[in-house]
């Protein structure tokens, strides 16, 4: 397997304050990386650097191949009169100025929006819109799929479907690499092959099975409080 994302000594600061510091890692082709960390940890900042939105960093960052991206903050104008399927096709259109509507239909089905493809985007709920944005990212047929909290606002069943969809996608396209920021730690530990714990710097990074509770305690102050009443306790209990 070859390295598809390479980050060395990455540092990003605003007004003299380091938001990211000493971040180095490799992601190999086909990995499914879960990036976790508390609010304000710099996860979205890292993502923005990877997709090229932030350029004023120091260090070395290289992402090979096409990137599909689902940003945390939606920048679209929901009041613009555009059909759901047209919106989804944006990434596909960017590839070669033409759109395969069959593929669009298929992908919308996968995210559970097939019955809404002729609706206007303003007629979707925020959760439905999130699913649509995932469809758009997938339709760009990326080598690296970068998702910043794709599950935000999506109901629990929908989340299960998201992760199922990602698993399915990974099965069909084994070389697809996924980097996903998520606050759904249970899901991350279930689906991802690799976990990165980020809080201004990389606190731990490795195969999911090798991440220890102590690692998580280091980045999440309220970890004990969280684990007490959590449905995913078993996942950690096993270790």
């Amino acid at each position, binding site marked *: 397997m070859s390295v598809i994302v390479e980050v060395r000594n990455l540092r990003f600061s605003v007004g003299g304050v380091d938001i990211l510091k000493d971040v180095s890692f490799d992601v190999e082709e086909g990995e499914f990386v879960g990036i976790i960390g508390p609010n304000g940890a710099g996860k979205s900042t890292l993502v923005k650097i990877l*997709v*090229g*939105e932030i350029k004023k960093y120091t260090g070395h960052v290289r992402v090979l191949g096409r990137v599909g*991206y689902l*940003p945390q903050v939606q*920048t*679209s*104008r929901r*009041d*613009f*009169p*555009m*059909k759901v399927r*047209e*919106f989804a096709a*944006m*990434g596909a*259109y*960017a590839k070669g*100025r033409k759109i395969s509507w069959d593929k669009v239909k298929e992908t919308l089905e996968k995210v559970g929006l097939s019955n809404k493809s002729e609706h*206007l*985007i303003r007629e979707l709920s925020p959760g439905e819109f999130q699913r649509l944005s995932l469809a*758009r990212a997938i339709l*760009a047929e990326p080598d690296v799929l970068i998702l910043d909290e794709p599950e935000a606002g999506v109901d629990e069943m929908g989340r299960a479907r998201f992760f199922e969809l990602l698993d399915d996608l990974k099965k069909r396209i084994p070389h697809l690499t996924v980097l996903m920021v998520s606050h759904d730690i249970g899901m991350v530990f279930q689906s991802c092959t690799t976990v990165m714990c980020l809080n201004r710097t990389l606190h731990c990074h490795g195969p999911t099975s090798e991440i220890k509770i102590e690692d998580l305690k280091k980045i999440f102050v309220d970890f004990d409080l969280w684990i007490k009443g959590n449905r995913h306790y078993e996942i950690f209990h096993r270790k």
Partner: protein
Amino acid sequence: MGFVQDLARFEFLRISFVGGILVAVLAAIVSPFVVFRRMEFIGDGTAHATFAGLALAFLLGFDHRVVSLLTAIAFALSVSALSRRRVSENSAIGILLSFFMALGMILFSLPKRYKANVIGFLFGDILLVNKTDVWMTLFVLTFVLVFLIAFRWEIKYFLVDEEMAKFFKLKTGFVKVFILLFISLVVVTIVKVVGIVLTSAMLIIPGMVAKAFARGFSSLLLVSVVYNFVTFVLGFYLAYRFDLPPGPCIVMVSFSLFLPVLKFL
């Protein structure tokens, strides 16, 4: 009744009627862009910028159409150059509007062979529209339509999600500059009909109406065009019928028809 006969009889009336319709249609086509880019101010801005152009034209004795067009383009390019993440297009427009207007006023105050009718330009006079204007409008209209058809997806994606369109490397910079250029071209032609002060009505209202009812890009343009067409014809007729100034009549009609639409916004 007499209106149709008079149209047939008087060439000047016919030319202003046809020219006015073309301008109304043109304004309607760019109106959705103005509304969705939240550049409601741009009509005003460009119109005021042409004031500087007019002053310059009279001072130097050049053709005012050409000079005001060049000023409008200079204005659009300055807006594009000044606006960025933390300077919205509206802020850029507001700042440049004052600058161009100030420039115009200084130029107009220079005591030279200036005898032009400033009021005519501030409020427009559709009856001064001539054949050259009609041809120019038709030319701009064709130009805009070709651009719209050729780049319709880029334009749609630019309007719906500029950031992601940029991420996907769609030609956003190109579309952005062209939209600004078109708006300036269109404003220069509208100014002749309704004048600097009333330009905004023709440029903002149809887009707002279209926003309320459209279910796609084509219908967005269609609703906008139909609205401006109807309000123009109605306003023009009322002006003829009651011997009132046409520009303000058109604005009155457009505004009155807009009020009930507010319910849908």
